[in-house]
Each structure stands twice: as C-alpha cells, then as structure tokens.
C-alpha cells in the first residue's frame, strides 16, 4: 500500500490550477475523496481561479453562438438530477424581445430588469430606432472597450441597486448601467447628471423598462464631468436636480 505523502494537502493549489501531471492528479483525487478539508479548500481555490478566468474574459466571435446553437440542437442532454426540493426557477427567457441587444442587456442585468438605451447628447432611445441604435452602440462599446484608458467603477444606489460605469477620456465616452433600481411611483423618474467643475448638466431621464426599473446608457461628450449623479425627479426630468442624489458615481477616468 502506498504511504500517504504528508505533503499531499499542499497540492490543492496546483490541483485547482490544473498544474498536476496526470498520475499526481489521479492520486490527489483519491486523496480528496477522504479529505473534506481539502475538498473545501479546492472549492474555494477553484472559485478564485474562476475569477482569474473572468478577468481574462474576451468577447468571442459572433459565429460561436451560431455554432453552439447548431450543436446543442442535435445534442442529447444527460438526464437532470431530480431533487426532493427543486430550486424555484423563474420562467426566464420566454416571451422576451428577441432583439439581440435587448435580450443581452436584460439577461446581463438582474432578474426582471428591463433595459433601454439612450445616447446622451445625441438622441434618446426611440422605439422605432432601437435596432439602429443597437448597432451604433455595439460599435461604440467595442471602441470603448478597446481604448487603453478605459476604466470601470461601481457604487451602490442609496435607495437600492447599483451603478456601474465604464469610461474613457480619450474616447470621451462612458457606458453607464444602473442595476436593480427600486420601482418608482407614477409621475417620478430617475435622472442622470453629469457633475463637473463647470456645473451640473442632465444626462437624461433613465429609460424605464416594463416593470419600472431601468437600464443602461452610453454617454458621449463627458466634458469636465467628474461624477455621475442620480436623482429622483418628476417624470420628464428637471433642468437641474431638485432632490438629493441617491448615487454619486465617480468618473473612473
């Protein structure tokens, strides 16, 4: 019988990083079966490694989706494991608008969050022009993501939700996403503000989704804005903020 290497516990890191030779990996997997502490550590280091993967995320070529869809259409799934108390699963995906950017945004945001797009200082989203805007926005997003000085930041919204921004000075653009906002009563709207040394200008009323929460904005023409503010205003918006900001998101560039 093989003696257990006392150092085998130290292999958790190498195992989580897939850095073991096959024989050593097999030995460590046998060890894992009887070492709950190692299993816990491996699970945590794998979650950590997953963040290393997330940090390497890159948009795949568009054709990948079509290839995957074609293949899963002819791939039989292994039977689902039936549990005594299945997790509640919201009926997501059905009845959603199929336009790519709408579905993408809706899915990227939290459950039930609808999203629309406005291009600040250019034009506000208009139902008829959404597709054009999607193309325009895709191109703008690509440029923004490619800019070497693009930085991101996020802060909580004091009344619930989270504001996120991706901004580049060289492109003079910021993509702003507000996630999980509380639904407002009729007659009120969320309004964005661009706040800088030369004053505060409106960034437009946040487009409102089906369920009263709303989505993301690509802002062009940052000017001297240092902070992105969010207030609750009468629907239609105000010329200047009339309430205390519920979010002050520093421009990361």
């Amino acid at each position: 019988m093989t003696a257990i290497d006392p150092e085998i516990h130290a292999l958790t890191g190498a195992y989580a990083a897939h850095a073991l030779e096959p024989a050593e990996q097999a030995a460590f997997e046998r060890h894992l079966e009887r070492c709950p502490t190692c299993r816990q550590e491996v699970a945590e280091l794998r979650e950590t490694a997953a963040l290393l993967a997330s940090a390497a995320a890159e948009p795949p070529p568009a054709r990948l989706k079509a290839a995957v869809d074609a293949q899963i259409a002819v791939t039989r799934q292994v039977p689902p494991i039936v549990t005594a108390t299945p997790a509640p699963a919201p009926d997501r995906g059905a009845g959603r608008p199929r336009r790519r950017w709408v579905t993408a945004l809706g899915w990227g945001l939290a459950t039930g969050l609808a999203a629309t797009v406005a291009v600040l200082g250019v034009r506000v989203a208009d139902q008829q022009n959404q597709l054009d805007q999607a193309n325009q926005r895709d191109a703008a997003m690509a440029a923004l993501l490619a800019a070497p000085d693009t930085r991101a930041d996020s802060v909580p919204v004091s009344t619930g939700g989270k504001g996120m921004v991706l901004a580049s000075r060289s492109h003079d653009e910021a993509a702003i996403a507000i996630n999980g906002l509380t639904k407002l009563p009729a007659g009120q709207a969320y309004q964005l503000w661009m706040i800088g040394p030369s004053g505060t200008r409106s960034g437009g009323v946040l487009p409102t989704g089906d369920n009263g929460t709303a989505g993301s904005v690509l802002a062009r023409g940052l000017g001297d804005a240092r902070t992105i503010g969010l207030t609750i205003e009468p629907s239609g918006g105000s010329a200047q903020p009339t309430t205390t900001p519920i979010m002050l998101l520093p421009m990361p560039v």
Partner: protein
Amino acid sequence: MLGRSGPKSDTAEAVATLESCLHQVALGDRGAFDTVYQQLAGPVYGVARRVLRDPAQAEEVAQEVLVEIWRTAGRYDPARGTVRAWALTMAHARAVDRVRSVDASNRREARVAEMMTEPPFDDVVEAVEAHLDRQRVRHCLETLTDLQRQSVTLAYYGGYTYAQVARLLETPLGTVKTRLRDGLARLRDCLGVGA
C-alpha cells in the same frame, strides 16, 4: 454555498440568475441557455484564448465547453461550487489539456499573430463587471510576492504544470507547489471568495 465574490455582494443576483438558469437548461430550456451563454461565453473563450493563444483553438474549446454545459447541466452539483466556477474549471481544464497534447503544442509554436476584428460585448453590465473583475484581479495579483504571482500566472494562464513552472523559475518543486497554494489562497482572501 461559496459566494463568487463575497463582500462585494453586488454580483449575488447575477450568480442567483446563473444558478436558476442552469436548472432550466437542465430541463431543456433553450432560452435559459442563451442567458448562460451570455454570461459565460466571454470568460470561457477568454480563458481558453489566454492559455492557448491561438484564437481558432480557443474557439473550438469554447464551443466544446459551452455544448458540454448544455449537455451536462443536470449533473451540476451546487454543493461543489458556483455554476461559474464549474464552467470555468471545465474551460480551463480543456484548454490545458490541449496545450499539453503534442499536436496542440506544435500549433502553439506557430502562434496566430493577432485577432481579426471582434464584435463587442453587447452588454454593458457584462463589460463593466469583466472590467471590474480585471481591475480587482490585477490589484490582488499585485499583493502577492513575485514568486507567488509568477507561479500562479504561469500555471493558470500559461497552462504549465507546477514541475514546468519550477524549471522555468529555477525554483525547487516543493517551493512552487507551496507558492501556488498560498498564492491562490492570498488571492482568494483579497478577492473575498468564500467569505
């Protein structure tokens, strides 16, 4: 269950979405799979590309993994980690397997120069979160010692075994083994994983 990002619980809802979507995927829901694809295709492809370098091979691996997610969604066990970690562990393992196959290593030498034009992330939130992940990971990598950082990045992004890492760094095997473990553990604490 292990949180994907612990104290930064802002991604908690997204995690819940991925978990419940995968359950729907196991039941054959193509719409739910689109959601999973939306959230995971970027990191799956990205990590494969980081390890393999060659975009064409990364694309093949990404396709295999995404189809495998569809095929084996019913076998995902939440007790063993998040959907994201499950999927990205699979993606990383497959990319590494390819690197270590002779065929792949030959092709890897002839690295395809640079990417053709790519479509953008069509999702602001995904893009912002990827950026935030990148910033946080970069920041946390900086908190490691040089040897920890080199060990982790060579093993994880480089796809090297720890024995190869030891040779590259001219460092004893046992040291690299330990640095991989305590380096990842320090990253875990810095990133707030499992808190």
